[in-house]
């Protein structure tokens, strides 16, 4: 009997010890706040809600304090926990190519095909990646980490996660969060830079409406695109192979149901899992480190450099282009492939200076080219470090 009350008291002791309260740290509170901010921005400001809601809620889930020593298989870093199993696809870089499959199936490359020279803008914006690489080395990151961080400048969540999983597994989480955060903030980051670097005349440049694109061209693009880009950088195959595969499913016209699933149920499921686990992997005890702060600083820098790079490149091109063929530098930012947000930014800013000048269509070109560009950049870095 005495034994029993022993049990009760001990039980209560134990129960309390297992609740979140005694295990809570300042870090947990900070991260939970961050998670709530993500969710708020996603819902009320609608910044990339499909990414920020899962990530934000994932941050909450990942930062519920618990007695880690008790091996209750709760935490994402505890083998045997559900989150740990679902996180596998992030750690091994399996989810990103599947996301790319879906993106390929929902991306229309017509805008690009109707005016191929816009592809170069997609390349130009990748300067953000290499600029960030140099900065990362300067502030003291070792090269492989610097490379993994720099890719944030590619403005491509999946690409960033994929590269990080190969070069800097310990930084995946911070890199992914940083990449997605800035992608969501594109409408905030880019406008000032674009306005700063352009003059009124340039902002009013009109471009002639894109020409029609034939079905054949659209079918040939994923095929030629795959062979050409991966012949140059085979290490980009996992990403570009899937991207172009998805696009062929869409354009072939005979595999509609596969394309529908790839851009529907499949990408949704992977988005849910990648968002949730990336968010949950921000477990305060492992996430709040000086590195993480450095990574966020570099991420911001890379987006600024990329945007500026894209705009300036257009201005340089215009020096060589004849009147009437000049490009509006306000679409230069679109090489930052936060599809389709950066293209939308071009559209809004453009309208601010000419109510009838619609740049969206033209901006979509560099926008999708940027996806290819950053995948190629990731491929090169991979071959440099893993080769």
């Amino acid at each position, binding site marked *: 009997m005495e034994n029993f009350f022993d049990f009760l008291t001990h039980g209560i002791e134990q129960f309390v010890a297992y609740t979140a309260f005694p295990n809570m740290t300042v870090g947990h509170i900070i991260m939970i706040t961050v998670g709530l901010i993500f969710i708020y921005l996603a819902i009320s400001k609608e910044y990339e809600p499909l990414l920020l809601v899962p990530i934000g809620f994932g941050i909450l889930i990942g930062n519920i304090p618990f007695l880690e020593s008790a091996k209750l298989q709760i935490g994402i870093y505890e083998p045997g926990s559900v989150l740990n199993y679902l996180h596998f696809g992030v750690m091994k870089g399996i989810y990103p190519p599947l996301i790319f499959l879906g993106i390929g199936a929902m991306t229309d490359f017509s805008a690009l095909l109707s005016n191929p*020279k816009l592809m170069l803008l997609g390349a130009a914006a990748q300067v953000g990646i290499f600029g960030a690489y140099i900065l990362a080395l300067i502030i003291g990151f070792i090269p492989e980490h610097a490379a993994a961080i720099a890719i944030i400048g590619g403005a491509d969540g999946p690409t960033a996660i994929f590269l990080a999983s190969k070069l800097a597994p310990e930084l995946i989480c911070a890199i992914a969060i940083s990449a997605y955060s800035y992608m969501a903030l594109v409408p905030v980051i880019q406008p000032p830079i674009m306005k700063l670097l352009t003059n009124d005349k340039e902002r009013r440049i009109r471009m002639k409406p894109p020409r029609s694109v034939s079905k054949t061209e659209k079918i040939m693009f994923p095929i030629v695109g795959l062979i050409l880009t991966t012949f140059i950088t085979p290490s980009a195959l996992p990403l570009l192979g899937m991207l172009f595969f998805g696009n062929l499913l869409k354009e072939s016209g005979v595999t509609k149901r596969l394309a529908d699933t790839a851009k529907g149920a499949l990408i949704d499921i992977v988005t849910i899992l990648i968002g949730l686990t990336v968010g949950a992997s921000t477990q305060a005890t492992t996430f709040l480190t000086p590195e993480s702060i450095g990574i966020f600083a570099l991420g911001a820098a890379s987006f600024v450099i990329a945007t500026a790079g894209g705009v300036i490149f257009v201005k340089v091109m215009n020096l060589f282009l004849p009147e009437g063929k000049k490009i509006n530098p306000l679409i230069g930012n679109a090489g930052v492939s936060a599809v389709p947000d950066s293209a939308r930014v071009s*559209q809004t800013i453009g309208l601010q200076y000419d109510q009838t000048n619609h740049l969206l269509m033209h901006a979509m070109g560099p926008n999708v080219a940027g996806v290819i560009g950053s995948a190629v950049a990731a491929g090169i870095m991979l071959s440099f470090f893993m080769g």
Partner: protein
Amino acid sequence: MFIAQALQNASDSTSTIVHRNSELFMKIDPYGIGMTVMGYSVVFIALLLLYVIFYNLSKAMTLNIRRILRKEGKTEEANKIEEISGEINAAIAYAIYLYFNELHDKENPIITINRVSKAYTPWSSKIYGLRQYPR
């Protein structure tokens, strides 16, 4: 030397390789200038080639298609190939609408172009049949 190393690498774990290369770069490319020069130029080369190919391809296509259409007497369609202002305006209108409704949905670009993509195609016209089939 690199290749030799690569071959020798084959026996090590990925992370070991990565780290060895990393240390090498720290010595010979401490500021990442080399990486930048090479990486950035490769990105450009890749997209430049893509540009060259599709620039010429589309030229060829357009001519070729217009010839076919002319043969079939579909002159107006033939001219349509050049300009699609009609569609494009519709497309833009819709794009704007979507834009102001801030539908954060990656499929937008598709919709904005849809009608355009229905342009003439030399491939088997059966294709269209499928597009309508009910899921």
